[in-house]
């Protein structure tokens, strides 16, 4: 008994001490800002499994901040926090951004599970958050304070199923990353939509793999025997690039379809000539600037990163910042609840992916662009509007 109490005391004291130190330091750090800045939290996975995506998105947000540094005469200060691709950390970091750094609005994150871990926190603290590429419908559903700049999984899966059917595919196979919510979500809605169009049993094979796997030859050899017209294989770009490479090496000729995570330079770097001719849905069209803002974004990006081309993730993060920026401007105050209301009312906002309007769940309604890889570059193929899907 004595031991217990003493242990508890020791814990409490050291907790207080450490927390105290942390607090003191922070104040000293940020004290210089004064009343002339508005703080925007950047909440991204910069280390861990999702570090690759987080880094690309950080570029977008930083670039957006560079082009739009001030709102209503106040400088916007980004507070970047790493959620380590880990949910417990994500929850801590979100609470920290709100309570310690006193940010007015949060932009991020890549990875739906991380966003969900922060969901209750932003809702309880009444600080709005705008997701960059957290596509799981659960993120915004039933949460008035979480919004997003990207598509949701059901939409993308349905878009790709319709596109595949339109192009004459009648037999599809699915290879899903079973431990990735994004991949499972897209696959599920692809299957539903495709079977509705092409009849039951038209999805001839569903194979699974785990995040971090490098060898997919067994699953692909099975798949080859089924001879599908098209393979739907959404997932992380690292795994997907290797998967497609191995599929081509095994002699699978069917086109591969996927989701917007593929739109990164690394996907092409790793996949090489094997990823030529794949299709995926994206919100961002690099060749034809959808808006003047998109043009500005692309030019600035090329200048900032020595001729590299921006990808969809970076554009989405840029858009998320723009939504926050616009809301700050419209609300004209630093009251988080008013900022939230302004975000919810976002309508026909000029973003890099066209005009963005948020629906009642806080998800954007926008066109999907179908893209492919041609000569080592992402190339525009087609556009699918939300109305196209309803018509069928």
């Amino acid at each position, binding site marked *: 008994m004595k031991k217990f109490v003493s242990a508890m005391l020791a814990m409490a004291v050291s907790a207080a001490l450490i927390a105290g130190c942390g607090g003191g330091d922070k104040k000293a750090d940020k004290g210089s800002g004064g009343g002339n800045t508005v703080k925007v939290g950047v909440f991204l996975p910069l280390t861990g499994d999702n*570090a690759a995506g987080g880094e690309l998105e950080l570029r977008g947000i930083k670039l957006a901040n560079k082009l739009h540094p001030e709102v209503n005469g106040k400088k916007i200060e980004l507070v970047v926090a790493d959620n380590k691709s880990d949910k417990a950390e994500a929850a801590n970091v979100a609470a920290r951004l709100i309570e310690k750094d006193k940010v007015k609005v949060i932009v991020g994150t890549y990875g739906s599970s991380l966003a969900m871990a922060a969901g209750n926190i932003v809702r309880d603290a009444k600080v709005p958050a705008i997701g960059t590429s957290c596509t799981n419908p659960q993120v915004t559903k039933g949460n008035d304070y979480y919004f997003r700049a990207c598509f949701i999984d059901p939409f993308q899966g349905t878009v790709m199923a319709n596109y595949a059917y339109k192009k004459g595919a009648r037999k599809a196979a699915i290879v899903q990353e079973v431990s990735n919510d994004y991949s499972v979500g897209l696959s599920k809605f692809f299957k539903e939509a495709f079977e509705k169009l092409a009849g039951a049993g038209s999805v001839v094979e569903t194979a699974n793999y*785990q995040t*971090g796997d*490098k060898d997919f030859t067994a699953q692909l*050899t*099975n798949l080859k025997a089924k001879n599908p017209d098209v393979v739907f294989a959404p997932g992380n770009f*690292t795994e997907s690039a290797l998967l497609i490479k191995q599929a081509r090496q095994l*002699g699978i000729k069917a086109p591969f379809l996927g989701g917007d995570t593929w739109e990164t330079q690394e996907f092409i770097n790793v996949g090489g000539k094997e990823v030529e001719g794949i299709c995926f849905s994206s919100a961002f069209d690099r060749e034809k600037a959808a808006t003047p803002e998109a043009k500005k974004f692309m030019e600035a990006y090329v200048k900032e990163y020595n001729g590299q081309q921006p990808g969809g993730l970076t554009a989405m993060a840029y858009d998320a910042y723009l939504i926050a920026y616009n809301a700050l401007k419209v609300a004209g105050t630093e009251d988080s609840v008013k900022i939230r209301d302004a975000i919810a009312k976002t309508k026909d906002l000029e973003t890099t992916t066209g005009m963005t309007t948020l629906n009642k769940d806080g998800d954007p309604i926008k066109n999907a662009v179908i893209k492919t890889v041609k000569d080592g570059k992402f190339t525009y193929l087609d556009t699918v509007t939300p109305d196209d899907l309803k018509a069928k």
Partner: protein
Amino acid sequence: MEIFQAIANMTAAGFAQHLVNGISLGSLYALIAIGYTMVYGILLMINFAHGDIVMMACYFAFFGITAFHIPWYLTFVGTIIATALLGVIIERTAYRPLRDAPKNSVLISAIGASFLLENLANYLFSGRPMHFPDIPFLSSMIPIGGVQIQAICFFIPVVTVICLVLLLHIVNHTKTGMAMRAVSKDYEIARVMGINIDNVISITFALGSALAAVGAIMWGIRYPGITPYLGVMPGLKCFIAAVVGGIGNIKGAVLGGFILGLGEILIVAFFPAFSGYRDAFAFIVLILILFYKPTGLLGETTTEKV
């Protein structure tokens, strides 16, 4: 029954393809497993960081070819040397100070070393995957009667066998090898007999890491996306392969590697519905082996001394 259906649907070419896939994966596992088994054989400790040494070697080779434009064959030699050095450094800093400490401390230190390498790679090279350069010829595909085989797949078993033979020669027929075996049998007595234990252990680590580098190069050519966490799963599986074969036994490691590689592929081939459980296969094999034959398939039975 699903399995009968799977067999009925499988064509000869399909089955041959599965076998080829399994053998090439298995020989990669075998190559890395040898490194584990060597270190364990001498020091009786799991070098948890072995998988991460593989990862670092991939990065060495990557930077050698893309950043410094060294021809690939020279880069590979350089990578092997650099990785062997890395292995020795890890041994000196993380394991040597704990040589007389309880086994659990060494295990913890090994876990720490592995964790450090991952975080360091993530910090230095960023989490974005990098493309391991294509090597002329080795990366190309060769079709043989409907079965697609990557040229490297012919080389991996050959390299594995060469490494195996070389290693067996070093261990069984050289003075250093004799010293290694002496240290592994009884390390106190070996010291008394005038063997420089520190040197022997360093050489063991250098050899084990050089093997890891060879494995890493093969791995990089076969699966050309490199990330800081690439060593984690292969590391674990190859350790399991070493245990399955009988840890400390070099031939056993090769056998274990093939069992795991083939098993993983064939389980997906015959039970497609279980493809999501593929990664669990290695662990299930491990537990079965530990339960029925804890010393592994080729391991010697030793009785615990009091």
